[in-house]
């Protein structure tokens, strides 16, 4: 994802989309030449609590910023209790930015 404050008003960096597919997918991050995409799978989002949705949204934002998966915390794949930023992602954040 390219975050450019001087052009943010005219250039879209990230687009949010809904998909509907009968699969185990909750959401994904897609890197494209134009605007990157974060998509959420409505098939499963319909069945989720607000906290679970929030966690997935934060997690995908993490990918958009360049974070990979961790064994713990918000960047852990497939776990739902976390809704706040954890130490791992904070460390990564300071390292990357």
């Amino acid at each position, binding site marked *: 994802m390219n975050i450019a404050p001087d052009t943010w008003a005219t250039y879209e960096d990230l687009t949010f989309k809904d*998909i509907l597919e009968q699969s185990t997918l909750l959401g994904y991050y897609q890197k494209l030449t134009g605007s990157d995409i974060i998509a959420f799978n409505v098939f499963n989002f319909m069945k989720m609590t607000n906290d679970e*949705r929030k966690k997935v949204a934060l997690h995908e934002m993490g990918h958009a910023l360049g974070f990979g998966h961790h064994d713990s915390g918000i960047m852990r794949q497939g776990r739902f209790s976390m809704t706040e930023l954890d130490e791992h992602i904070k460390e990564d954040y300071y390292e990357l930015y």
Partner: protein
Amino acid sequence: MKRKVLIFSTLLSSIIFITFLNQGIDKDSVQSKEQNIEISEIYGDFVMDATKKEEVVGNSENVFIAKVIKQVGTQPLNEHMPRTQFEVEVKRNIKGKLKDFIIINQSAGFMTDSEGNVTLVKFENQELLEPGKTYLFASLYDSNNNWHNPVPGYGEVLVSDDTKKQMIDEYKKAFKAQKTSKIMEKHKDKDFVNGYIDEE
């Protein structure tokens, strides 16, 4: 509705926050060197820990070994999300029961933009299925399209003659110890205990 507004405002405030903190990071778009095809990788997240076989099996309706016969379609999910459909021959059922020839809808494929640029969209490093090769699939049945959606990457594993027997044993064992996510259990029309059985 309230929830949607809440999610949206959370995201919006994160974006604003991040925008202010950053001075601009160079885009490193991935370019394939051999061909002039751009590759767009998908980083997907699942209702489960997809690295654990008991969870992949527990959240799938069918787990089976099949040989890819041929590509039969390129019906996309949306404008950014190509899909490729393959006819496969079921060789062995591990969970659920599928007969003979079925369609696998892979989360990968080519898309062409208005300027004619071709992009291969794929799940991380998972390659497009290859006719003639045999895979272990873990999938959900999509009754609207009458095809099967495998778990990207983790539910489309290449099988060789050397690894076949061991893989069948591992997934049979995983079926016995299967774990289904609470989210998937809410899809009441699906049977995750026994899997999808094609009666016809």
